[in-house]
């Protein structure tokens, strides 16, 4: 299984901080499309994705147990 984390406005839109699904085998782009459809999320397109706390590419494949975070444009500092 895979834990998916939401932050900032994505967390507000999802209505939760995280969900757990089986995403193994999907690449990042496929996972985003899946989550957008299944959870009615309209703003995932502008988010980056991190796998296990490192930024990932759309083509990177999710492995069993990976933690996936959707990272909206950051605004720290």
């Amino acid at each position, binding site marked *: 299984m895979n834990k998916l984390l939401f932050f900032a406005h994505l967390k507000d839109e999802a209505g939760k901080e995280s969900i757990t699904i089986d995403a193994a085998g999907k690449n990042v782009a496929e996972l985003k499309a899946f989550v957008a459809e299944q959870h009615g999320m309209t703003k995932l397109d502008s988010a980056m994705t991190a796998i296990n706390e490192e930024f990932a590419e759309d083509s990177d494949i999710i492995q069993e147990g990976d933690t996936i975070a959707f990272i*909206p444009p*950051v605004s720290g*500092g």
Partner: protein
Amino acid sequence: MKFEIAKEPINIQSVIDQVIQREAGAITTFIGTVRELTHGKKTLYLVYEAYESMAVKKLEQIGTEIQERWSGADVAITHRVGKLDITDVAVVIAVSTPHRADAYEANRYAIERIKEIVPIWKKEQWEDGQEWIGNQLETVAYPKGEPEAKDLDE
């Protein structure tokens, strides 16, 4: 810890203390504070949220990048999360180097990189609403300051 996400007010001197070195002639600090007015609009307070474990890793990465680019540099960064009032300190970056030009340049590099790669977000609270900053590229913010029906989860 040299790279830290803090839930309490940041002690600036403690951040500086972590970069003191006998080889350094210069320490620069950048202190990001909550400003009341942005483009004439009054902020009441901010809320910062972080993906904490990844944010610490990315701050460490910035420290490593600086040490690769500026010889002899030492770096410490603390970013606060939670609710911050006007003039509260959101971030402190301290950089020490043998010579002063490097201390300014490396410090500037750190804040620009924080704004690029560190997963921290701020939500601005105005008198008439609130918004997560950083999503300006979205077509939907909350133009009326509150979620409208079409913005709500269904």
